């Protein structure tokens, strides 16, 4: 009976103030969408970092006039270096093959370059890709070395942009969350005001505090959950739209976000939406009803 009473009060409450309810749900949805998106990006960036940095190489290009002794000495030195996991020697022909593959789209360029013009190099994989600087300092003065190029520099830029997106989404999520919070507080105040007589009688005859508060708190929680469902739908829509658009071209570069990932963010969104609403409503009631 009491459950039925509480639930019907929740529905009546949401309906009585329906414009406010909708505003609350929409703000909540946008905020949670941004939060979910930011969470997904965070996870993706993590995955991609693992993947890319795993394969990242430091290329040590040799001078074209480097002697064979210098090349061998460097090779041995790298072999014994504790920072180095693996190093491969790439001679001019191999470099040329790579060059051909890389620029297969531009035959003019390929035909203009002869194998001789390409430098020999060592491709070095590090135990810890972050240790690039140490390698650089150690070998920059070695005889016969032209330049040392670190691919991770480029990756850092890519990831810089991605985490920029992520931070942006998080910032929007927080701003929208504040707006949603204020709307929840306002909605609860209006609801409490419209039921002030009932509340006064309930306090007078000794209804328990939870019984007085439950309909209001649940009202906010229901709105929060609706918001999280809408937020999830927005994420799904983004994935569907992105798959059919220019974003699809990036699929090879960025590891795709799977449906599982998207649906796994829902518990997070629902929990945040529900808990934030409930706490806001409860705090508002403590100030407003003094129960």
């Amino acid at each position, binding site marked *: *009976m*009491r459950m039925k*009473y509480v639930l019907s009060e929740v529905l009546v409450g949401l309906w009585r103030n329906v414009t406010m309810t909708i505003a609350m749900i929409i703000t909540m949805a946008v905020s949670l969408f941004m939060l979910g998106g930011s969470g997904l990006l965070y996870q993706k960036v993590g995955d991609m970092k693992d993947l890319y940095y795993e394969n990242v190489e430091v290329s040590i290009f040799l001078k074209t006039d480097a002697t064979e002794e210098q090349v061998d000495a460097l090779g041995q030195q790298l072999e014994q270096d504790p920072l180095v996991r693996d190093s491969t020697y790439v001679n001019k022909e191999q470099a040329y093959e790579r060059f051909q593959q890389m620029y297969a789209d531009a035959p003019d360029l390929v035909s203009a370059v002869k194998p001789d013009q390409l430098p020999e190099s060592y491709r070095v994989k590090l135990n810890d890709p972050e240790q690039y600087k140490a390698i650089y300092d150690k070998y920059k003065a070695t005889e016969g070395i032209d330049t040392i190029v670190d691919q991770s520099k480029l990756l850092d830029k890519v990831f810089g942009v991605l985490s920029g997106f992520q931070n942006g989404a998080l910032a929007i999520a927080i701003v929208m969350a504040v707006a949603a919070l204020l709307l929840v507080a306002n909605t609860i105040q209006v609801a409490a005001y419209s039921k002030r*007589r*009932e509340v*006064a*009688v*309930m*306090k*007078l*005859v*000794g*209804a*328990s*505090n939870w*019984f*007085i508060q439950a309909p209001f708190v649940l009202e906010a929680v229901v709105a929060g959950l609706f918001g999280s469902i809408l937020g999830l739908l927005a994420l799904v829509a983004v994935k569907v739209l992105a798959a059919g658009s220019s974003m699809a071209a990036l699929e090879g570069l960025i590891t795709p976000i799977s449906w599982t990932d998207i649906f796994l963010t829902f518990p997070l969104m629902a929990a945040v939406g529900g808990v934030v609403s409930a706490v806001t409503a409860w705090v508002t009631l403590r100030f407003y009803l003094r129960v």
Partner: protein
Amino acid sequence: MTKTYPKASRPSLDNVSVSIEKGEFVFFIGPSGSGKSTIIKLLLHEVTPNKGRVVVNGKDVTSMRSWKRPHFRRSIGCVFQDFRLLPNRTAYENVAFALEVIGKTKAVARRVVPEVLELVGLGGKEHRYPHELSGGEQQRVAVARAFVNRPLILLADEPTGNLDPDTSIEIMRLLDRINRTGTTVVMVTHDSNIVNQMRRRVIEIESGRIVRDQARGVYG
């Protein structure tokens, strides 16, 4: 005990000591602002005294935690000058509401509410809304709501303040009848007629002090 409200220049109740026995009928009288309404608030645990103790039903409620208050209130019925009925509910629903929000089932309400409405003399008017009832009838609904849970104490804060003399007397007869069932009745009023007719214990308060405590007293 003493109760001083914040920002007040003098205590609302100053060193007042009163003992009311179970089953008594007591009037608190005195001019406006004398502190008689504070007595009701103290008994309801709406406010706590600055000094001294409040003991209700043998329990010291002075330092009762606020989360225990709801349960404590169930042993006290309340009637006010402005009735405090829910305008969108019928007489029956108003009384049933008080039962349902403290966890009684609808079945209990169906059994008990008609009984108590009959007791207060509203048999046949259960399904009227407050605006369809006279002031006296509305106050009867309020009394029914206060009494339906069979409280040990009935507090009445100027229950006849909005009623004409004849109706007031009817309400007093009702409170008297409730008192005869063993319920302690504490009534705050400045209706001299009623006090003089009832001839019950009268405690007069002036400027926060008891100036008279008289069994079978008059308004004075």
